[in-house]
């Protein structure tokens, strides 16, 4: 079986090391690894309608400046977002910049738990709480903790096991669900992430004729081709590419 047809790499079976993934050869992915090394969704922009193209290309090219978070919060929360999304190297999707924009523009998702403050206040409190955890380790900011220390704090946040100080002011598990939602929305709205996961992206006005129904065949010529081997050389040869 080809490496991505079996399921042994799934996190439910063990830990997958992304350094084993093919390196991206075309376009960008976060950290330049992914499952579709020769796919760049941004090569398809000429097939998108004007309104969508402007929005999506603008998302990549015009990273919003920080207007909501302050100087102390930014490094703490950037490190937190990177930890949540396993971004340990360039290129990085600037997740926190999009979170900042959403909070600054009060572009909320339409609900607030009865036992939670506003999303803005939730994010500020999380920043304070993360720095409180760093202080317990004798450091000034969550941002200067080493990777395994950050990971440990985030793990306890995930488990709802952070107590006292900022954490005592709200429901920690709900706070986790809120920040995770913001972070995932920012990350997976970005075309570099679409390259990594092989998403077709905007599909108007082109649409799909080959969508897998037996009478119509499998896929469009331009769609992402999954790597057939984790080794880039083997993959290239087996796909019959140069």
């Amino acid at each position, binding site marked *: 079986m080809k490496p991505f047809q*079996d399921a042994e790499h799934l996190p439910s079976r063990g830990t997958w090391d992304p350094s084993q993934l093919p390196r991206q050869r075309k376009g960008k992915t976060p950290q330049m690894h992914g499952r579709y090394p020769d796919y760049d969704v941004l090569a398809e922009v000429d097939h998108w309608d004007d309104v969508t193209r402007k929005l999506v290309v603008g998302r990549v090219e015009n990273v919003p400046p920080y207007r909501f978070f302050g100087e102390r919060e930014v490094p703490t929360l950037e490190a937190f977002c990177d930890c949540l999304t396993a971004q340990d190297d360039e290129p990085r999707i600037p997740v926190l910049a999009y979170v900042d924009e959403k909070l600054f523009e009060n*572009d909320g998702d*339409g609900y607030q*738990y009865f036992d939670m403050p506003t999303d803005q206040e939730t994010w500020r409190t999380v920043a304070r709480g993360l720095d409180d955890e760093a202080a317990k380790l004798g450091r000034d900011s969550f941002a200067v903790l080493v990777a395994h220390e950050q990971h440990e704090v985030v793990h306890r946040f*995930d488990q709802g096991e952070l107590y006292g100080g900022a954490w005592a002011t709200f429901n920690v598990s709900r706070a986790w669900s809120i920040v995770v939602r913001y972070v995932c929305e920012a990350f997976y709205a970005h075309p570099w992430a679409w390259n990594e*996961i092989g*998403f077709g992206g905007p599909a108007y006005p082109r*649409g799909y004729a080959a969508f897998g129904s037996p009478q119509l065949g499998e*896929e469009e010529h331009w769609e992402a081709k999954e790597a057939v081997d984790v080794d880039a050389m083997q993959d290239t040869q087996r796909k019959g590419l140069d």
Partner: protein
Amino acid sequence: MLKTGSFAMPEANDSPFLLDMHERGLQNLDRMARYDEKETVDLLVIGAGAGGVTLAQRLARKGWRIVILEKGPLWDPDRDWVSDEKGAGPIYWTDNRIIGGTDPIQMGKNNSGVGVGGSMTHFAGYVPRFHPSDFEVRSRDGVAVDWPISYWDLKASFERVERELPVAGQRWPWGDPHDYPHKPHPIAGAAAKAWQGAKDCGIEMRVGPVSITNGVFGNRPHCIYRGFCLQGCKVNAKASPLITHLPDAIEHGVEVRADSMAIRVELDDASGRVSGVTYVHDGQEHFQPADAVAVCGYAIETPRLLLNSTSRRFPHGLANNSDQVGRYVMVQGATQVAARFPELMRMYKAPPPEVSSEQFYETDESRGFARGFSIQTVSPLPIAWAEHVTAEGHWGLALREYMRDWNHWTVLGVLCELMPQPENRVTLADQKDQFGMPVASFSHSLCDNDKANIAYATKVMQEIWSGAEAQDTLKIDRYAHLVGGCRMGSTPEESVVDSSHRAWDVPNLFVVDGSVLPTEGAANPALVIMALADRFATLLEEKNVA
């Protein structure tokens, strides 16, 4: 009975011909009526969604002078909508709501629309009928309440609306068996996998029913299978009242007043009749007088508006002297189970709604709970897929790997019928919105029957995937749809409106939206809301309502 393919265009709705083949926006806005605010209109409708627009279109054809107030914009899909998951934000109602109870319901993109077309601009497109049993669950199953009307009171309305949307699907064997006007759409590989898995477990599925054109229908284009139904259809292939009813309504004299937030229905304390509605447009308060008012704001906003409309006669909110406004709000248990296969599924292609089953819709006492559920395919795009992954606690490297694996996955969801409960209700919070109006607070908790239903339905999905030899599964517990909150009933003590949608004690106030549903069935609510509006309009025409 209507046979698939023996299809005639709707008789009293020219909407598909009033659209343009090459532009998605409405073509007859320059002909739209403009009523003066000093002029008393025949009917003022609050909310331009499934209920409000359908009602206005019907009555406009009978000569009624009608204004629709809509909080959000009048969309032009070419200009305002994007083929992008995050960029669809503006079509969801994202003004704040407070959520509570033991099982709080996430609002916004999941269940609330804003702007002309309402939530149908972003609903998946499934339009199953309610079953005859849905209208008599107290008599049959000893739970909840019977409706004051039966399936047979709505059957002709279901058929009319199905021709107007139009609905594509296979012959439907469940409930009251029927055909659909358009033939079923071809299905994608991901849906075929679900079909096979279900079949291997002895579960029948059918293609559809979806309100997506699959053939010639006026100037509505054919679906292009791009997979963005939940982000607003830029093609005009998927139905919403913006394109299925509003063009014809405008042609017959309806004014839709967009960006206009109704904040109070005004009552004349002397006569006990409503006199019109106060609304905010461009930061200014306006008043539109009307002979009658139909509130069509859905399960959260309709109760909120009535509760905020206090008077000497109704100190606790309009039509609320029995403390029924805002109660019995329902959502459906909508757990989804995703499954992993060796081959590429590419869920992003084809419409998210493809195949469904109502084999478990009715009560089966051997399951240990009352009522049932339906099963449907869904296709989360990347941001929604991340919710599936994080729901099982994955983050960091594990999140990224499950996300990279997305194209190998396909997803089934259920709609479990949950019970109406008086404490699952909308009230007014202390917090105010940008219009100075108290925001809605929605409290929701599951009862034991609800939990048993969801647990059983989840087990069935897992069995289907196990039968299909899935390599891995991911489960997310969630909820979908909103109905109830101003239910119709047989007595003023137990309901807000009577069987003709009229508020008890207020002769010229009507509620015509999903909030009137006494029970919710296991069907998606769009079709029944349109059908109720159609029936209500027929009652008015026949002067069955004073």
